[in-house]
């Protein structure tokens, strides 16, 4: 019975399935029908828009990647489609459809049993947990196993948010806040280990770098529209395009960088009422308790050191992608979000730009290898919800999907599936 309902729902595709589920959830959480219907439809429309921009992205980037590979011999076959697309794919899968009740359920149980102090209201970033779960489902063919994997990611996220909460609150001056964001939490162990190693190197604390200068001199590179244009030109140049094709690719890429996020914002808009009702629901029940409110790591991105290190990481990541043996990821869309990859490094280096950048480079090595390794699975997931890649072409991945928890659980799933 349940299986046939799930099959029917997934058969509808994400443009219909998600709105239905969002509608039901909204009504359960006490929204008015008109409000619930509006947010449900907005989510569906977000998916429709996403179909358009994915077409644009693949249509422009895939031939250029192909030409680049043929001409230079580099083996960068996995296109980085970015966090927006990765998130939408994750939400569009069967695990993604169930992630909101799952992650909330886990959070409520953990608050009741006092195994966490964090109330995670950042519904958007549930996509990370759904992402991990969807990979396990595509490997094993089992939805329950996928849900278990998503649950593990969600639990680890809450635990790391508990542990890092006090430092986040003190350093960023954000009282009552913790960060259970699915990617950010996976960077914490890497940052802690690297910071210890850097402590052992004499003279390292003497190296000073000024974030304001970096931002002033290179800030323009960090803006998506320019970043897209520059990357388009770079890829076109490497692909041996003539000036006409090169400029056309540059403007298309600038367009992709600007348009994908705009579409994702529609998606977000649809999630806001749900997030608000869920927050109200939970705060009514746990209102008397002291707890941290779990928010998006986006709130940490404004720190000048994070912004500066994020900008420096753009060329560093491209360079690493070119020279790391075995890497297949061609960084693109998530290069506009490099600051996200170092927000926790800024915290633990206490705002030291040099250290943050060095640790950021190590993080990007881990990210590149994981996103390369997960590319075939992400491509299969995309295909399972109707985003077919062009014939014989490349695979897709996202740097923001490059977290070791997903990789670890996917590896375990591969062993189980054998």
């Amino acid at each position, binding site marked *: 019975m349940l299986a046939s309902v799930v099959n029917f729902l997934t058969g509808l595709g994400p443009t219909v399935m998600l709105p239905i589920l969002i509608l039901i959830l909204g009504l359960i959480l006490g929204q008015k029908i008109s409000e619930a219907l509006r947010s449900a439809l907005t989510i569906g429309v977000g998916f429709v828009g996403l179909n358009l921009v994915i077409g644009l992205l693949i249509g422009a980037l895939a031939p250029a990647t192909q030409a680049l590979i043929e001409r230079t011999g580099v083996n960068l076959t996995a296109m980085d489609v970015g966090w927006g697309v990765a998130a939408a794919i994750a939400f569009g899968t069967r695990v993604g459809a169930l992630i909101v009740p799952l992650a909330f359920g886990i959070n409520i149980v953990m608050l009741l049993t006092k195994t966490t102090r964090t109330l995670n209201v950042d519904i958007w970033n549930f996509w990370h947990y759904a992402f991990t779960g969807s990979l396990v489902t595509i490997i094993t063919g089992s939805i329950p196993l996928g849900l278990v994997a998503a649950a593990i990611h969600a639990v680890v996220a809450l635990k790391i948010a508990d542990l890092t909460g006090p430092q986040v609150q003190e350093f*960023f001056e954000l009282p009552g806040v913790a960060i259970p964001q699915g990617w950010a939490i996976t960077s914490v162990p890497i940052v802690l280990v690297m910071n210890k190693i850097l402590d052992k190197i004499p003279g390292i604390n003497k190296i000073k770098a000024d974030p304001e200068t970096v*931002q002033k001199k290179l800030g323009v590179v960090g803006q998506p529209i320019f970043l897209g244009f520059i990357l388009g030109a770079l890829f076109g140049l490497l692909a041996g395009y003539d000036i006409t094709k090169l400029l056309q690719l540059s403007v298309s890429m600038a367009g992709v960088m600007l348009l994908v996020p705009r579409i994702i914002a529609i998606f977000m808009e649809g999630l*806001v009422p749900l997030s608000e009702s869920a927050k109200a629901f939970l705060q009514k029940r746990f209102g008397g308790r002291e707890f941290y409110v779990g928010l998006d790591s986006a709130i940490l991105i*404004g720190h000048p050191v994070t912004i500066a290190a994020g900008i420096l990481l753009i060329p560093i990541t491209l360079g690493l992608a070119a020279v790391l043996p075995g890497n297949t990821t061609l960084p693109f869309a998530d290069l506009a979000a490099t*600051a996200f990859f170092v927000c926790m490094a800024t915290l633990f280096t206490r705002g030291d730009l040099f250290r943050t950048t060095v640790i950021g480079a190590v993080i990007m090595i881990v990210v590149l290898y994981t996103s390369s390794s997960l590319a075939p699975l992400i491509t299969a997931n995309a295909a399972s919800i109707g985003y077919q890649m062009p014939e014989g072409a490349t695979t897709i991945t996202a740097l923001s999907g490059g977290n070791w928890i997903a990789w670890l659980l996917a590896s375990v799933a591969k062993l189980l599936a054998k």
Partner: protein
Amino acid sequence: MITGAKEDARVRSQSKAPGRQAFSKEGGGIIKRIIVACGTAIATSTHVASKIKKALEDRNLKVPILQCRVSEIEGLARDSDMVVATTQVPSTVRAKVVSGLPILLGRGDKEVIEEIIRFVLEK
């Protein structure tokens, strides 16, 4: 255009640092705007912007709301704007800045909304 230039000059003479070309690109007209900024101009800013939009609609107020990344505020904000940010704003930004975090947290959100409404209603 001429009236625009006049208003432009007037506002500039009022501003704290005379000579700063706050209006050079957009031309005249002192339309108040609310700029909602976060790390990406997508996630948390959309959340905060939709709450503000709703609060303004409830009171029949019309003010343009722009979303941007924190790194873009500098180039975008005029002195007459209000910036609502969910993350740190560069100290060089001279428009009025309020934190949008209470709206995300659901603690103290009413006060922030009130402050925004007051800003909109000011002459």
